């Protein structure tokens, strides 16, 4: 069974925000909201500073608290690739999923339902990469099946050092950042 994930090379990412614009255009994300965003993470002590630029979004967790806490089943794990999705017509807008996400990756759509990155499942079902991956000018983002050892994402994870975000939250995120 497929398990979709994304590998993002932080060495290549320049924070151009093409992925953000592509997502908003592809998914009609309303003005003032973001399903994905750019984070600059600066660590160290001057003059030895290190900056990591990351394209962030819903981490499509294997252990998704947003799904567990949902009282109506609107937040669910899709049968294809284990992608976490929200069924808009089942969401009551209680915001429990927003509270339970350690990445604050969800928001309330102006129409009242919880919204977030879907890995562009409508494209993926047609074997097309998510919009953010397709437009990236530095090709820093790779999408694929983590269960397939021959997929590009698995090969990257086997050959490079990487980290995930807030692993201590125990959600088993499936967005990996190459360092």
């Amino acid at each position: 069974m497929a398990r979709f994930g994304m590998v993002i090379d932080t060495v290549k990412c320049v924070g151009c925000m093409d992925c953000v614009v592509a997502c908003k255009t592809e998914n009609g994300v309303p003005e003032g909201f973001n399903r994905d965003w750019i984070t600059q993470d600066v660590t160290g002590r001057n003059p030895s500073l290190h900056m990591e630029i990351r394209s962030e979004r819903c981490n499509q967790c294997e252990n998704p608290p947003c799904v567990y806490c949902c009282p109506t089943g609107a937040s669910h794990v899709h049968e294809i690739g284990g992608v976490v999705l929200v069924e808009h017509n089942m969401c009551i807008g209680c915001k429990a999923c927003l509270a339970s996400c350690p990445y604050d990756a969800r928001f309330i759509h102006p129409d009242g339902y919880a919204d977030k990155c879907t890995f562009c499942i409508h494209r993926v079902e047609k074997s097309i990469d998510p919009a953010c991956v397709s437009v990236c000018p530095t090709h820093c983002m790779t999408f694929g099946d983590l269960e397939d050892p021959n997929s590009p994402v698995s090969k990257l994870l086997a050959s490079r050092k990487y980290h995930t975000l807030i692993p201590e939250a125990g959600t088993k995120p499936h967005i990996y950042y190459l360092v």
Partner: protein
Amino acid sequence: MHELTTTRHNELVDPVLHIWGWEIPVYLFIGGLVAGIMIISGYFTLKGQFKKNPFSSFYLPHVSLILLSLGMFSLFLDLEHKLYVWRLYTTFKIASPMSWGAWILILVYPALFLNTLIRIPDRFKGVVPIFDRLSARINEHPFLIKNIGVLNILLGILLGMYTGVLLSSIGARPLWNSAMLWMLFLVSGLSSAAAFVHMIARDKYERQLLAKADNAFLTLEIFVIGGFISGLLTSTSVHIEAAKLLLNGPYAAVFWVFVIGLGIIIPLFLQLLAVNEKVKHTALPPLLVLSGGLILRFVIVYAGQYSHYMHQALSR
């Protein structure tokens, strides 16, 4: 140095999560108050002490039906997709405390209603004949009255626990992620309910009894808050940072002054004097207890949303 700069600015989420406004703390307070009322009223019903405690046994269930409806209305106001609220009752999600709560609330109404039928106030007698007949039938069978008492106690405990579990199950917010929270909200609910009776009941024996009970609940609440804070302080660094929000952070002033000082210590002192007949019973201590209970919910809900894995990693 560790500095994060993000381009994200989603409403209600950035810069600090604030998805739940006044509606949820008010709902949690009223839910806890009704839970306490059910336990107290159910206990007197079970023990056959309803004649000694007329307000707790005969009027409190009526009041709590109204209170619970207000609480549920407050919860409804918080929903962003209001017209889909019925979706709560098309499924039961065992892992979701909110789903549990929705169904518990459905069970609480009939239990409270049965409690009101044990004695219908004189002014309402004859208004709905079927209720009078049901009331007569219940009073013919003392075991039915005892079962109604047990049902109210059990559902009251479940309702009071649920208001805490709702928050403590959310692991992403370190302040809420404590197994003591359900106990804190349950004890606070009991204390608020005892204070409510103390404030409104006219019978001297009942006021004295509930003031004594409230003193016990307030004392217990101090220990539970101590356990809650020490549990956080002995946990991971994000939990320690979360505890500091209450101890010396942005929520410390409200927590120490309005929750601990004016909400617990001062009314406990005044009520101890009152039950020992050093001063007269007044409405001031119960009013302080009720205000403290409400402010406790506000502090916990707001500070909990402020607490975060990412922010606290940065503040170190």
